[in-house]
C-alpha cells in the first residue's frame, strides 16, 4: 500500500525537480495527444517550447513578447499570493483588473487631448485605486459581516464585465469611432500611452512594475513584520491570533494590495499592449494568475518563472496553430495537462511516499 507521510519541512530538492518533471510529463502526455491528432509530437513540442525562444526567424520578436504576456500575470499573481499565503482567497482579480483599466482609461479620456506629464502618473494612481476599491468590497464585507470573500470577489467579476460593456458602448465610447463600441486608442494619445521603454525589448511600465512587485514581495515576506504575520496567519491561524496579529487589518491589507496590483495590471494593459477599452478587453489574466500563483508555489521568484512558463505556452501555442495547424482547443487541453502535472508534483515536495502498511487506517 502506498501512503504519504508529511515532511516536517518542504523538500528543497523536490521543489526544484518537480517542475521539471511536470514539464517532462506534459511533453509526453501532450505529445501523445498531438500524435492522436495526426501531428508529429516532436515537432509540436519543439514549436511550443523551443521556437518562441530560439527560432532564428522570429525569436527576436517573441522573446520580448514573453515579457509582455507574462507581465500582467506576474503582477496579479504576486498580489494574490500574499493573500493565499494568509488564507485569504481573492479569486476576483479579473474584476479588479477590469476596474483598474476602466478607471485608468477614464482618467486619460477625461483629459483628452491635453498633453501633460501628470496624466500618466494620475492614470497609474487611478488604476491602482480602482482595483483597490473593487477588492475592498469583498474585504469590508468579510471584516464587517464575515461574508465569504471567495464568492463575493468572484461574483464581482461578472458585475465588472457588465460595467465594462456598458462603458465601452456608452460613456467611454470613442466619439470618432464610427459608432463602433470601444474607447479611443490610448496608443494614439502620447500623454496617456504606456509605450515600450526600450524599443524591441517588450519592456513597458507594466513589466517594470511586475519586477518591482516580485522584489517587493520577496522583501516583505522575508524581512518585514507584515510578511511574518501573513505567513503565520496561513500556517497557524490560532497562533497568529495569540501573537496579536490583527486579522481585520490583515484581510484588508491582502485584499487591498492584490486588488491594487490587479488594477495596475489592467491599467498598464489598456494603456499599452491593448490600447483601448472594448467589450472583450479582459482575456482571463485574473484567473490565469491564480494558477500562476500556485505554480510558483506562492513564492515571488517561483511566480516569476511560472508567469514566464505560462506565457511561453500561450505564444508557443499560437505558433503551433499557424505553423502546424493544431487547433486552439488542443493547446488549451495541453495547458490544462501542464497545470495538472505541476499541481500534482507538489505532493512530492510536501510529502514523502512510503510503500508499506499504514500504522493507522
Amino acid at each position, binding site marked *: 500500500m502506498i501512503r504519504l507521510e508529511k515532511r516536517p519541512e518542504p523538500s528543497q530538492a523536490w521543489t526544484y525537480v518537480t517542475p521539471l518533471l511536470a514539464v517532462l510529463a506534459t511533453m509526453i502526455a501532450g505529445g501523445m495527444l498531438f500524435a492522436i491528432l495526426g501531428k508529429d509530437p516532436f515537432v509540436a513540442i519543439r514549436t511550443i517550447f523551443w521556437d518562441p525562444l530560439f527560432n532564428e526567424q*522570429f525569436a527576436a*520578436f*517573441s522573446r520580448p513578447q514573453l515579457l509582455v*504576456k507574462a507581465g500582467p500575470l506576474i503582477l496579479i499573481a504576486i498580489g494574490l499570493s500574499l493573500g493565499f499565503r494568509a488564507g485569504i482567497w481573492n479569486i476576483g482579480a479579473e474584476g479588479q483588473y477590469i476596474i483598474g483599466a476602466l478607471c485608468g482609461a477614464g482618467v486619460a479620456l477625461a483629459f483628452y487631448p491635453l498633453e501633460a506629464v501628470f496624466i500618466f502618473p494620475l492614470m497609474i494612481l487611478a488604476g491602482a485605486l480602482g482595483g483597490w476599491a473593487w477588492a475592498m468590497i469583498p474585504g469590508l464585507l468579510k471584516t464587517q459581516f464575515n461574508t465569504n470573500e471567495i464568492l463575493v470577489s468572484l461574483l464581482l467579476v461578472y458585475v465588472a464585465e457588465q460595467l465594462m460593456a456598458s462603458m465601452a458602448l456608452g460613456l467611454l465610447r470613442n466619439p470618432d469611432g464610427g*459608432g463602433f463600441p470601444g474607447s479611443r486608442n490610448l496608443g494614439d494619445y502620447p500623454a496617456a500611452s504606456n509605450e515600450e521603454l526600450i524599443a524591441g525589448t517588450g519592456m513597458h511600465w507594466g513589466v517594470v512594475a511586475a519586477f518591482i512587485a516580485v522584489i517587493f514581495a520577496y522583501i516583505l515576506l522575508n524581512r518585514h513584520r507584515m510578511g511574518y504575520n501573513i505567513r503565520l496567519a496561513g500556517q497557524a491561524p490560532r497562533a497568529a491570533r495569540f501573537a496579536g496579529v490583527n486579522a481585520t487589518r490583515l484581510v484588508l491589507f491582502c485584499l487591498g494590495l492584490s486588488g491594487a496590483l490587479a488594477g495596475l495590471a489592467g491599467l498598464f*494593459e489598456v494603456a499599452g499592449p491593448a490600447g483601448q477599452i472594448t467589450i472583450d478587453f479582459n482575456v482571463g489574466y485574473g484567473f490565469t494568475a491564480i494558477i500562476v500563483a500556485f505554480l510558483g508555489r506562492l513564492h515571488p521568484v517561483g511566480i516569476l518563472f511560472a508567469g514566464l512558463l505560462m506565457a511561453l505556452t500561450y505564444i508557443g501555442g499560437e*505558433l503551433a496553430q499557424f505553423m502546424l495547424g493544431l*487547433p486552439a482547443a488542443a493547446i488549451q487541453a495541453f495547458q490544462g495537462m501542464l497545470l495538472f502535472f505541476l499541481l500534482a508534483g507538489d505532493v512530492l515536495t510536501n510529502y514523502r511516499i512510503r510503500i508499506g502498511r499504514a500504522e493507522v487506517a
Partner: protein
Amino acid sequence: MNIKTLLAGATLAFGIGAAAHADDPLKVGFVYVGPVGDYGWSYEHNEGRLAVEEAFGDKVETTFVESVPEGADAERVMTQMALSGHDLIFTTSFGYMDSTIAVAEKFPDVKFEHATGYKRADNVSTYSARFYEGRAVIGHIAGKMTESNVVGYIASFPIPEVIRGINSAYLHAKKVNPDVEFRIVWVYTWFDPAKEADAAQALIDQGADILMQHTDSTAPMTIAEEKGILAFGQASDMINFGPNSQLTSIIDNWAPYYVARTQAVMDGTWESADTWDGIEPGMVAFAAMSDKIPADVRAEAEQMIEDIKSGAYHPFTGPLNKQDGSAWLGEGEVADDGTLAGMNFYIEGLAGDIPS
C-alpha cells in the same frame, strides 16, 4: 529590423514583390476572433480560406490562428505571421483594426486585409459586405409571409452594422405589409447559443412567427424549427438546423474576394483598396429559397435581388424619415455610404429605442 526594412524597400523598388519567389508557395495567413467551429462568423472566413486552397492548390500555403483575443494578442499573432514569411494576412474582426495598422507599419512588404474596419494604409486594405442588401430581401419576404404581423429580431450589439440591418429589413417588410411590427431583443453577445435560444423563445412567446437574427450561432434557427415557426439564417446556410423553418439565409461568402486578392498578390497587382461589396460580386449570397415561400413572393424577391445587382435599386431610397419623424432622404434620394457606415438611428415606424 533596419536591414529587413531596407531589403523590403529594395524588393518593392525593383517591382518584384512576393511574386519573385515563383517556386515558393504564397503564404496566406488568417486571424480569427472565434473558433472555426462556431458555424457562424469565423466558420465562414475559414470556408473562404479553404476556397483559396482549393483555387490555387500547391501555389499557396494557408495558415490560421483561431480564438485570438483582440488587442495585444492579435498584434503578436499578426507579427509572428509576418515574421514567418506570410505574404498576405487577413484579419477578420473589427477589433483587430488598430493592431493591423500597427503591424502593417512594421512590415511594408506584407499585405494586410482587414475585415469591417475603416483604417487603411498602403499595405492595408479593408473589406466588408453590404449585408443590408440581403436584409432588404428577407425583410420583403417576411413582410409578405408573416401572419401574426410580428417579426422577431435577435440583435447583438447596438452598432451601425446591426442597426443598418434592422432598418433595411423593417423598411422592406413595411413596404409590403403596413401592419408589420418588429420586436427587437438585444442580447449583447455575438455568440452565446443558450442566450440566443432564450431570446428566440421570448420572441416566439410574444407572438413572433418569423425570426431574424444578427448573432452568430444556429441556436435561434433550431428553436424556430422546434416551435414550428419560420426563420432566416445568418452567416451560413443553416438548413441542417431548420429544414422546415429556414426560408433562406444570408450567407457571408468571402471566398470570391479571398481568391481574387490572393490572385492579385501573385500577379503583383495588389493595391490598397476599400471594398464594400454586396450581392453583385457575390460577397452577400443566399441559401436556397424554401418551397414555403409562395411563388409570387419568391419571384418578387428574386427580382429585387436582380435589381440590387444591376444597381437599379438601392435598399435605402427616399422618401425616408428617421424614427423621430425628421426627414432623412428626399424623394428618390439614395443614402450615401458615409451615413450608412455610421448609421445610429432607426427609421420611421420602428418602435423602441436603440440602447445606449
